[in-house]
């Protein structure tokens, strides 16, 4: 992995050893520096680094890549941000930037870079080159099955090739704009064509609910919100998925902190709700432009606004819609 690290001026120490990154306050810096050196010398990754940091360490922030994500630890008044989001622990999925800083950190000079070693500074900004998808190499001793697809070999498929997907095609009350798009009656503008609906006499009618937007996942994929979802490591086991009332949203990953059945995303009227399914690590929601996150009460539905970010362990997704402000 290619990383560019820029130090941030200020009081403290900045350290890089290979892919392992650390910033720490002067007091107690020796122990942190020794720790990074020790883990790097042993060929450890971000998880080894973070795992070796004592809970009572002085003000410091550490980060390092792990398979499928980034391990991060912060202590005291230090701050870590991954792709612009403050984090307290690791994150799953591709990472573009990591920003570690102590209080009083300035801004990095774009001409600087740190290839390795320890220097004075109050923080660092690390940029990771775009990551390629990682395919898992199979155990080649394992049995395999193969189907020859050439015409004349494969059993010919049924004429209708497009497989219908599970969906939640409820009827909802809505209004139509002048271009005949069906909308949430509360919206001032059509969510399809953007035309103002303020002049329309808002006579609602019942119609099939259009998609309410998309869920954008931490790995960059987007999922259509025309169905309920159950998110987790093994969502297929959930009764709603088995019954076709919800789609499975598999969130796997090493040390992801995601429960087997973690969260249910439900479409209710024109709104998107999430409810924690009694997960081990809980679900946190960050509303747009609202400081801090709130932890969901298991079983209690919570209405998402467009732009809300939902965190399940180390994975996250965001609700995006035309109704974004």
């Amino acid at each position, binding site marked *: 992995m290619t990383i560019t690290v820029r130090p941030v001026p200020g009081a403290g120490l900045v350290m890089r050893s290979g892919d392992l990154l650390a910033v720490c306050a002067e007091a107690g810096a020796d122990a942190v520096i020794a720790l990074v050196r020790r883990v790097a010398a042993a060929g450890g990754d971000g998880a080894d680094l973070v795992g070796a940091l004592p809970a009572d360490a002085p003000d410091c922030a550490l980060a390092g890549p792990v398979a499928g994500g980034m391990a991060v630890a912060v202590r005291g008044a230090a701050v870590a941000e991954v*792709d612009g989001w403050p984090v307290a622990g690791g994150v799953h999925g*591709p990472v*573009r930037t990591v920003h570690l800083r102590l209080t009083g950190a300035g801004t990095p000079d774009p001409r600087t870079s740190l290839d390795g070693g320890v220097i004075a500074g109050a923080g660092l900004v690390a940029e990771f080159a*775009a*990551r*390629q*998808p*990682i*395919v*898992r*190499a*199979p155990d*080649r001793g*394992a049995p*395999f*099955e*193969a*189907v*020859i*697809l*050439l*015409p004349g*070999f*494969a*059993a*010919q*498929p049924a*004429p209708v*090739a*497009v*497989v219908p*997907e*599970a969906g939640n095609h409820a009827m909802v009350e809505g209004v139509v704009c002048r271009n005949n798009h069906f909308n949430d009656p509360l919206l001032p503008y059509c*969510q399809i064509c953007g035309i103002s609906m303020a002049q329309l006499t808002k006579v609602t009618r019942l119609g099939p609910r*259009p*998609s*309410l*937007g*998309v869920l*954008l*996942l931490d*790995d*960059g*994929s*987007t*999922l*259509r*919100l*025309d*169905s309920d*979802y159950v998110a987790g490591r093994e969502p*297929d086991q959930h009764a709603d998925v088995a019954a076709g009332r919800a*789609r499975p*949203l*598999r969130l*796997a990953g090493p040390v992801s902190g995601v429960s087997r059945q973690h969260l249910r995303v439900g479409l209710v009227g024109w709104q998107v709700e999430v409810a924690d399914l009694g997960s081990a690590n809980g679900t946190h929601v960050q509303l747009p432009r609202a400081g801090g996150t709130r932890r969901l009460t298991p079983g209690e539905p919570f209405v998402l606004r467009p732009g809300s970010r939902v965190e399940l362990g180390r994975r996250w997704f965001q609700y*995006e*819609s*035309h109704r*974004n402000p």
Partner: protein
Amino acid sequence: MQGIADYDFVRPLGSGNHGQFFLAKRPRRLPVDAEFVAVKVLVAESTETAFRRATRELAAFAAVASPYLVSPFDAGQQDGVFYYSMGYEPGGSLARPAEPVPVERALRAVADAARAAGALHGAGIVHRDIKPGNVLVNAAGGRLSDLGLAQVFTEGVTVTGMGDLDAIEYVDPELLVGGRPGPATDVWSLGVLLHRMVAGSGLYGELPEADGLLALRRVLSTPPRVSAALPGPVAELVRDCLGPPDRRPDAATVAGRIDAVAS
């Protein structure tokens, strides 16, 4: 990675939207006349349901007889990893051609991709993933490859993460806000592809690389703008492809109109 099932890999060929391509020796059991084949290994974990659905969709794709499609030969799974093999085109794709592709050749390749899309649509199949990386170039023109299978592995998915985030530039924004794919959304992608090949730029300016959220927001908030550098008939065709879904030309018409421009 050395291989999968009875395919021995020769070298990696690059990454696709949700997997990796390898050049492999043809296994003896495969009844095709070629020394080498291309194998795509998918990132997504294969499950029984996904394997059956993927194989069914690929078989339907393979059954569409068109010289402009790269047909899959064989699909399988080993140790929870899904793969499929297809013909190897040494010329590379419009995204990464083996040698520079002049505009006239790129136009021929896009026209052939449109013919391929037309053949798929005629069989009731939507490609879902038309973009430069999936149009392979050869001496005669081009061939459309790699049916988008993402929705088989993750139901409801419209854009897959990991890898070519430029794919978002080719997706009908209607899909990004939850619309359903159909022949018209493939025609949108053909329009963007044509624009990119002739003007050398996209409809939204340069999208932020490797940042899915920013790229998505940009596509949703920026009205597509057709470059002034496009010759009149090309600009008109691109605009028609981006028009209201029910008024877009069908893929075969797009092919014919590109032929008319190119000749």
